C-alpha cells in the first residue's frame, strides 16, 4: 500500500474492540490482560480509560482482583437483543436483505478451500480459542 496509512483505529472503534476482547476470552480480565489480548499495541492508560468508560455506560461489570479491577461484559438485559434479533432474522428475505452479513453460506468445496487457506496462514484454530 502506498501513500499515507490512515490511523489504525478510527475514533470510536476502541470501545468496541475492548468489549469484543472481553467477550472473546469469556472470563474476567484485568486491564493488563486486556492490553495483552489486544496485542500490546495500546497504552495501558488507554485500555484503562476505555474500560472505565465502558463501565460508566453499563456495558461491563467489574470486581476487585488484587490491586486492580477485573472486568466482565454485561449480558444483554433480559435477552432483548437476542430474541428481537431472532425474530427479525426469521421474518423473511427482506429483513435479511437489509442486514449486511459478514459472510454467507458455503459449499463443501468452498469450505475445503478456506480451511486450506487457514492452514497455510498458520494453525487452523486460533490458539486459546474454545
Amino acid at each position, binding site marked *: *500500500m502506498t501513500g499515507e*496509512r*490512515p490511523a*489504525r*483505529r*478510527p475514533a470510536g*472503534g476502541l*470501545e*468496541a*474492540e*475492548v*468489549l*469484543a*476482547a472481553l*467477550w*472473546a*476470552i*469469556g472470563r474476567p480480565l484485568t486491564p493488563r490482560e486486556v492490553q495483552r*489480548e489486544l*496485542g500490546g499495541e495500546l497504552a495501558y492508560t488507554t485500555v484503562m480509560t476505555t474500560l472505565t468508560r*465502558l463501565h460508566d*455506560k*453499563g*456495558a461491563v461489570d467489574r470486581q476487585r482482583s488484587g490491586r486492580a479491577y477485573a472486568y466482565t*461484559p454485561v449480558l*444483554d*438485559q433480559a435477552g*432483548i*437483543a*437476542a430474541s*428481537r*434479533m431472532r425474530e*427479525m*432474522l426469521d*421474518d423473511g*428475505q*427482506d*429483513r*435479511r*436483505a*437489509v*442486514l*449486511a*452479513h*459478514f*459472510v*454467507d*453460506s*458455503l*459449499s463443501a468445496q*468452498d*469450505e475445503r*478451500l*478456506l*480451511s486450506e*487457506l*487457514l492452514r497455510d*496462514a498458520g494453525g487452523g484454530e*486460533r490458539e486459546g480459542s*474454545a
Partner: protein
Amino acid sequence: MTRVALLLPLLVAAGFGLCAPVLARRLPPRQATWLLSAGAVLAALCGLAVLGLVGSVLLGEQPSIAREGHWSGAALRARAPVDAVIGAAGLAAAAAALAAGLHVALRRGRALLATHRLCRDLPAAADGLVVVADPAAGAYALPGRPGRIVVAQPLLAALSAPERRALLAHERAHLRHRHHWHLAAVALAAAVNPLLLPARRAAGHAAERWADEEAALATGDRRVVATALARAALLTGGRPPALSAAAHAVPLRVAALLAAPPRPRPGLAGAVVLLLLVGACAAAVATEHTEDLFDLARAAAR
C-alpha cells in the same frame, strides 16, 4: 428513429445487467457500488419512461381520452411509433413494473423501519457493538441512527485480536457508508426492471468488497481480513443461505484480499457511464418525439 429511441433504453438496461458482474469484480469496490446502484436506478427509470410513452400513445388513441385531451385519436394512431399490440404490452409492462416497484419499496421500507426501531432498543455503548449468544447470528450491521454491529459470541471467541478488529471495521464500514441504501436502490431498480437483476446481486458483492477493503485499511493487513472472513465463514457456514445472491461470494472476497488492492479502471467505468448516458439520451429523445406526436394530433383535431 422513434422506434430506435424507444428500444435503446431497454437494450441499455439489458447490457448494464449483463456487465454488472464484471463491474463488481473489476472496479474498485467503492466505485463499483456507486456505479451499480446509481446506474441501475437510471436504467430502470429510462426503461419505465419508454414503456410509459408507448402506453400513453395507445391510451391517447382511445376516443374518450382523445376527446378529453382535445387531440385526434385517429391522427395519433396513424403516426403511432409501434402497433397496438406492442403498445398494449408496453402499457401492461409499465403497470406491472410500477406495482412491483411499489411492493418492494414498501417491504424494504418496513424492514428498514424495523431495524431502526430495533437499534433504538439496543444498548448504544461500545460504539454500538451488541454481542449475542446465538452462534447462528454470525455478524452483521444493523442499519439505524446510529446503527449497531451484532456479533455472535462464539465468533468473537474464534477470532484473534487483529481479526476481531477487521470484523468490526468491516461492519462499521457498512454503517458509515450506508450500504443499505445502495442495496435498497438497486433492489428497487431490479423489481421495476428484471433485466437489472444481475446488478442487484453484483451490488451486494461490491458493497461487501468495499467493507473488506476498508477493514484492510483499518488493520493495515489484507491477509488478516482474509483469515477473519474464512474463519467466520467456516464457523457459520452450515446454515442455509441468508441471501442466495451472496452465496459463494466468500472465496471470491478472500481471493481479492490475498491479491493486490484493486486499481482504478477509468476506461471500464467510463464506458459503462457512456452506455447509461446513451440510454438516458434515447429516453429523452423518445419523450420529445412523443410530445411532438401529441402536438400534431392536437393540430389535427382543430
